[in-house]
């Protein structure tokens, strides 16, 4: 039962990663791509680490996985923010407004 759950988590996590990877190629400008990268960085990592945690069971390994998770939980939004902040200060203007499926992204 736990095995099935952990495989589902790992599978969904991996899939999310790939979708995020597609996202950083489909979105039109830097800021929107940052959102796609953010997707994979957060939920994908959470799901995969949780799935691995179920595999590891209640042990020191699970604690280390938890530590990695905590670390990513702190650093990944911080890095995203630092990137966005630096880009904005560097004078990179975001594309704004609704882009109604012009097909070219």
């Amino acid at each position, binding site marked *: 039962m736990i095995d099935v759950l952990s495989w589902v988590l790992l599978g969904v996590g991996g899939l999310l990663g790939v979708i995020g*990877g597609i996202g950083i190629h489909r979105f039109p400008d830097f800021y929107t*791509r940052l959102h796609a*990268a953010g997707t994979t*960085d957060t939920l994908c*990592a959470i799901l995969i680490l949780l799935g691995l945690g179920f*595999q590891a069971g209640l042990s020191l*390994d699970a604690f280390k*996985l938890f530590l990695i998770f905590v670390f990513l939980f702190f650093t990944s939004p911080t*890095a995203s923010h630092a990137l966005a902040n*630096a880009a904005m200060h560097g004078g990179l203007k975001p594309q704004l407004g609704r882009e109604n499926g012009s097909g070219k992204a």
Partner: protein
Amino acid sequence: MYIAVTIAILVTMGLALARALMGPTVYDRIAAVNMFGTKTVLLIAVFALFSGRTDLLDIALVYALINFIGVIAVLRLVEHGDFHSNPESRAKQDKQGSE
């Protein structure tokens, strides 16, 4: 199943690497490298449990750490061009730079 996850992560890393190579702006490249690093951490974690060598989890942790510090350092270098200027004085520089 470990294999499937590994392949998924590798595909993502490939896509991120492509963006890092293509990326029109330098920020695109840094974002892609950051994503690549996070995926590497996950890859090491998956491999550690797959092979049963769970001491590799320490390395995953170290990689997460170095990745974060590396991105911050590169961003500072891109933004300031050096490491020794005071972070607080950035506001002034920005005003001059954007003119």
